[in-house]
């Protein structure tokens, strides 16, 4: 538990520093434009990861691992009997979406000749005893999901089929994140740009939940 909290704190700090870095979005995009001839000029970890030989199947399985985690979280949350009203309605819809993502990614990976990642034997989602606790974890998971898909998008080699499909799912995760924030009474759109995380950052965030 404590470990999860620490990890999530770390993630939150990473997020904050990124947000600060992206405050002047004009400056950021301008820097990107200047760096266009040399993607590494800005030290962009996302671009650097393309050199690590991640295949589209690797990325799809990376996404599937996250979708398993999310699907299991929402199944547990909805089945737990703690939720009610609009929160129950929305989280039930989100559960169905995550299950659909799991099924679709599994099918796509299989059709490409890969071996789809399986769900973990168990997950540690921390405190599931109150609606507030569930919504807090949910918001963090969705933000990681959005950041993960956004960071992975540029690494996808099949731009005609897999990238549009991944971006489609990314938008759904973004809507989930905003919906949870709305339910918690926070501004659903807190920044000019959505979050972006590297594969390493995502792995660090979810490893304590999945365990090993």
């Amino acid at each position, binding site marked *: 538990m404590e470990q999860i909290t620490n990890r999530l704190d770390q993630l939150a700090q990473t997020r904050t520093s990124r947000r600060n870095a992206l405050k002047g979005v004009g400056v*950021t*995009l*301008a820097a990107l434009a200047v760096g266009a001839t040399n993607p590494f000029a800005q030290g962009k970890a996302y671009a650097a990861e393309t050199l690590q030989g991640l295949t589209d199947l690797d990325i799809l399985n990376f996404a599937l691992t996250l979708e398993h985690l999310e699907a299991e979280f929402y199944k547990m949350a909805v089945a737990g009997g703690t939720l009610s009203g609009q929160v129950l309605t929305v989280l039930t819809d989100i559960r169905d979406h995550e299950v*659909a993502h799991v*099924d679709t990614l599994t099918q796509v990976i299989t059709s490409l000749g890969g071996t789809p990642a399986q769900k973990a034997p168990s997950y540690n989602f921390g405190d599931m005893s109150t609606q507030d606790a569930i919504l807090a974890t949910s918001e963090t998971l969705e933000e990681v999901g959005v950041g993960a898909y956004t960071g992975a998008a540029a690494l996808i080699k099949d731009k005609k089929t897999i990238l*549009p499909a991944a*971006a489609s799912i990314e938008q759904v995760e973004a809507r989930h994140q905003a*919906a949870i924030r709305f339910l918690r009474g926070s501004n659903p759109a807190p920044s*000019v*740009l959505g979050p972006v995380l590297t594969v390493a950052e995502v792995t660090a965030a979810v490893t304590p939940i999945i365990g090993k």
Partner: protein
Amino acid sequence: MQHDVTTRLRLFATSRRHFMRATAIAGGLAAVTTLAPSRIAGIALAESAFQADGDIGVLNYALTLEHLENALYRALNASGLLTGKAADYGREFGAHESAHVDALTDTITKLGGTPVQAQAAYNFPQLTTEAQVIETLVTVEDVGASAYLGAAPLLVNPDLLTVAVQIHTNEAWHATAFRGLGGQDLVPFAFAPPRTMAEVVAIVTPFLQAPSRMPDTGLTDGNSLQAWGVAGGIAAVAAGLALARSQRTEEVEQV
């Protein structure tokens, strides 16, 4: 100004065709070359020059929509129809669109392109109630998100693609916020639907300034974004979704 938008959209269509040819040529060269480092560098350079051209077209398309959104928020915020939280969101999200306009304009200029300008005025519908304003913003933000979803995969430069996906996220957030305030479904679908540029242009044309309500984009089905496989990607997702639907009941019951 109308002319400017139209011209830009036509240039965009042209640059896409250009890029397709260039990529085919570069791809062909790559296939037959013996991969001497100097040859590879030369091909990469030639390819990136054409790709930058294509990316500018995509960014100008996005900028056209951001100008429209920016102007819409200004008009609706000034109308005084929004109250409370909706008024707060109107101001904040309007500032986001303005930041997107500035960032895209700056980036296009830095890439050597000519950023499309805002129209002097737009034909926005006359709204009289807060509910109408919220409904309009839901529609516009949903269209904006679908437009980015259709166009972002066309960006070749990976850093530009990443930022486009990040803006796409922000537009989806806006749509969700107004969906919540308007009592609409907060999470309407498991897979977000993209729109092609032709589809988006058809939707936004009534907002564009007279006399020419329908800009001549020079687009046909053959060279619209559809040709770039967006439809193919979604067909795959749709097939997966159908499968998922059939399995979902069973899956959920296992909990």
